[in-house]
């Protein structure tokens, strides 16, 4: 296999892996780590492909980022509520 097609294939592979990570709601950094750990893909490669994907799919990534942020804030809110509740329950005792 000549270089260009194997490079293309490799990039496609990384692309696919990134998509899988997105399904897991990972961030770019998490993805870099996961791919490096599980698939031996250098983080810089992952990050480059991720950035290029972002360029090509701006809308998607914008929505993705937004939803992740929302999730994070929701999680945080819930945690706060939880702590408030547990605090108040402690007080009652």
């Amino acid at each position, binding site marked *: 296999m000549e270089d260009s097609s194997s490079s293309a294939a490799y990039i496609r592979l990384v692309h*696919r892996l990134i998509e899988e990570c997105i399904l897991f*709601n990972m961030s770019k950094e998490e993805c870099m780590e996961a791919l490096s750990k599980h698939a031996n893909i250098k983080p810089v490669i992952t990050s480059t492909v991720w950035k290029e994907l972002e360029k090509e799919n701006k809308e998607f990534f914008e929505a993705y980022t937004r939803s992740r942020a929302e999730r994070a804030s929701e999680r945080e809110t819930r945690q706060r509520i939880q702590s408030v509740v547990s605090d108040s329950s402690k007080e009652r005792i």
Partner: protein
Amino acid sequence: MLAVSPLRSTRDEGQGEMMESFSIGTDDFADLSEGNLLESINFDDLFMGINDDEDVLPDLEMDPEMLAEFSLSTEESDMASSSVSVENNNKSADNNNNNDGNNIVTTEKQDEVIVIAANSSSDSGSSRGEEIVSKSDESVVMNPSRKESEKGRKSSNHAARNNNPQGKRKVKVDWTPELHRRFVQAVEQLGVDKAVPSRILEIMGIDCLTRHNIASHLQKYRSHRKHLLAREAEAARWSQRKQLLAAAGVGRGGGSKREVNPWLTPTMGFPPMTSMHHFRPLHVWGHQTMDQSFMHMWPKHPPYLPSPPVWPPQTAPSPPAPDPLYWHQHQRAPNAPTRGTPCFPQPLTTTRFGSQTVPGIPPRHAMYQILDPGIGIPASQTPPRPLVDFHPSKESIDAAISDVLSKPWLPLPLGLKAPALDGVMGELQRQGIPKIPPSYA
């Protein structure tokens, strides 16, 4: 030779291209003005020279293969040789074939424009008969005796690419999957947004394609992808929300049992499910990658849910197993309403292509019903396992990744637009990686 060109074009898309075809037979238009084309047509003249005995009007010379191709679209095999283009629906009424030995061609309502060069002469070179320019297809279709029903599309698929005696006529390009695949390859190589038709043409290196063909195909391709991605982004958002709440519900179940429920119930009736139905991939593109994002969200549930008694025989404890199975299962299920469900009654056989309803898996809505109480239950009892945040477990990630590695032929789950090859390589080289795959990890 009588040539009339109908000029109605209601759709903008094909308009520019359609106009090109109107130049056919302009020499005949000298005495005709647009407004009174039909009045100018002397129908008697048309009918002269028609051999009543024959079905086929003598003057039309068509290649046999064209004839064969259009047999789909023509009701009868008799092709009007000299034909009159009918401009309006009103004129064409129902059809042309009402008249004896008539050569009127019906136009499609507003979709098509018929350019007809009726020829009473027998010169074969220009006796192309009629041509119908179908707006939607930007194609030229011969359809002399077509009734009102839309047949242009069908016939356009067979439109002769090689029967093009006159350079002015637009030839319909048949975008076979193979052709399209090459097109996509070329586009990806250049980068979708940077892909220029002329360059694509170069890369594809196919003679029969004009820059115009490519340009219009590219336009369609882009709008299609954009549409898909926008929908997927929205779908991804929704499913992530769902996942968040589901997982969070279970996750927090141990901590604050009562808090979880209010979060759950309002959100379980998810509207996004309806959006699944809108995923309708345009088959012409040949991408199997669309609208898989939904079901792929589902497999995340099992790792998070403890084994609630509500679930049927639960195999959730082995998240790696069901996960890849689901990915396989839904690769080719564009329209399946019963796509991913998070409940795994039993391990599924890996069916990669198109088995959308796996026996034993409750349909999607059933899943919902189960899901709700299922999540509610652990909230009221202390779940046995310490639940993580909705971040996926290591095993499931590992499973997914190894799956991708081992099966490179699987289509992309999200179908994001691939990055431009050149862009990536350039960037990597800048980062100091000369070529990939690197020889060292």
